[in-house]
């Protein structure tokens, strides 16, 4: 899965000059983006820069108005999140996308239930696997797996969404502000989880407004502003001040598209 030997491996997931407009709002204005296997790529930018919209284009929720999405260098046409899932791309959305009335295990397996006799679901098996995955992933969510996730705290709900994505991802995992609702300990665990997922050779895309956190966990940082990429950095070669400058538009190292 890792292609560290290749001189110029194709990005695991990439966007090329993607445009997306909602009514009058031009959310994405020719944005490009690359995520490599075995790397954590941070995607940062001010509120409304278009990060979540880009993630939704990369995960099949939105279809770009123009531009292409590439998986391993091959252009792909995704018409639904299922298409992305089939290619091993999993997403933790900023708004989580959980069914609040269902319990954690049902959410983790929603749409991919373990079945008995083809039409029944095997709830005990799903609950067992979920408990195991939560432990494996160090999500530390020892909660009653039978209560609806609506009764979980915001951080616990986020943990469920992350565990779901980490459990199914085979190729790329997109995390849209996964630590936003988390306390110190849970945040540390999620960052740890991100590193472990990277060790598995997956490409990790990580959105956060916490710049020290970004520099701590990311291998590369891509900066968006007003729907386009304005800068790219190796995380060892930059600092918080420079990132802020890029976010605010004072610095750019991107040739205009």
């Amino acid at each position: 899965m890792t292609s560290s030997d290749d001189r110029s491996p194709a990005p695991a997931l990439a966007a090329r000059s993607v445009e997306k407009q909602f009514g009058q709002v031009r959310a994405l204005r020719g944005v490009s983006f690359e995520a490599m296997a075995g790397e954590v790529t941070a995607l940062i930018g001010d509120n409304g820069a278009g990060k979540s919209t880009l993630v939704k284009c990369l995960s099949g929720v939105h279809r770009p108005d123009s531009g292409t999405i590439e998986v391993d260098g091959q252009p792909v046409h995704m018409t639904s999140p299922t298409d992305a899932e089939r290619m091993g791309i999993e997403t933790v959305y900023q708004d989580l996308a959980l069914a609040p009335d269902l319990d954690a295990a049902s959410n983790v397996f929603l749409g991919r239930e373990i079945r008995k006799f083809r039409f029944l679901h095997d709830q005990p098996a799903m609950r067992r696997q979920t408990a195991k995955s939560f432990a494996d992933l160090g999500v530390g969510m020892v909660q009653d797996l039978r209560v609806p996730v609506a009764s979980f705290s915001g951080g616990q709900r986020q943990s469920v969404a992350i565990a779901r994505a980490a459990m199914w991802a085979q190729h790329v995992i997109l995390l849209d502000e996964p630590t936003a609702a988390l306390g110190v300990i849970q945040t540390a665990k999620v960052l740890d989880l991100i590193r472990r997922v990277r060790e598995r050779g997956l490409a990790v895309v990580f959105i956060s407004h916490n710049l020290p956190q970004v520099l701590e966990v990311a291998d590369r940082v891509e900066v968006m502003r007003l729907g386009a990429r304005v800068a790219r950095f190796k995380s060892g070669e930059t600092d918080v001040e420079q990132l802020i400058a890029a976010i605010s538009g004072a610095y750019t190292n991107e040739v205009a598209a």
Partner: protein
Amino acid sequence: MSGVQDDKTSETGHLHAMAEVAAIDATEAGDAVPEAAATEGAGMSVDTAPSPWRRLVSSPVVMTFFFLAVTMVLFSILAPGKFGTTSNFEQLAQNVAILTVVSIGTTFVIATAGIDLSIPSGIVLGEVFALKALGLVTVGSGTAVDVASEDTTAWYVVVALAASLLSGLLLGLINGFTVGYMRIPPMLATLGTLGGGLGIALLLQNGVNTATYALNSVATGQVIPGLSNLVLIGLLVVGIGYVGMHRAVFGRHTLAIGSSEESARRVGLKVERHLLKVYTVGGLASGFGGFLSVAYFSTTSVAGHSTDNLQAITAVALGGTSLFGGVASIIGTLIGVWIPAVLQNGFIIIGVQPYWQMVAVGVVLILAIYSDQLRRRSRSRR
């Protein structure tokens, strides 16, 4: 199955993670063993054990079951030897059987946060289609409509049943298409098919009812001695509904869509297609209800079902299925069907004006929905 499982490091990672979990969630150390958490709701962690009272009022099913049990005990005490008799129960069970069948179907619709007002037209169309189908079968110089109940055959029954189900299927498909694909709000879509369906039934019948005894044995016969077929069929439908809602992937997806349509779509559920199926289930249940109705009452009743939709919705809501979708209980619906019937029957027996039943059902309905609201509020406040 999962990426995690294929991971070679899973074994050590597992142990490591367990130690980690145990260290951090020291208060819940007993639950840190995943298998324990999985087999017995062990995660009953400190902050999720509600008081018995809260559990009672925040679980509509428990509350309405409690209410039903209390009223039944009361009536048994107030009318000794009259209410609590086997024959009275047999009668009650027959009276509610058709409403049960229809209500189970509509439980699925309501679980998606939808509503089906077209139930009366589904039932009446089911009756009329059954009758028209019998009319196509010639027997001697007449048709199967006119055969005596002793002279009926399985063939006539199958023909009538197929016709009833066909009408239910068509109605359900139209409802499902308008709600699922055309995105018309369910209340309006099914209001349309309510009127349209009734109109077609009245046109087919020229506004008058037709009697037939050909299907009588379906309802009043006893395949299992001592249990009327109608009650048996009702129980079977409850069983199928229970598996469909609570054990099958179909029910799981129904609840997920009712809980959050957008989330369901994001995990790749085909929401439109599923809604089509759910409304088709509702339509089939109504059509089947029409078949049972013409069998039981030996006549169509084109004007006799106009409040069946409200009765079914009442039963479903009493049973703890959330009108906002996402939460449903088939057993609850069964209880919810019985409450109005028991009140009506009990009031008559003890000599209270049966109109009080309407008042009492209204009060219990509002309490049940209030309890659902409490549950929703308490779960999302944290």
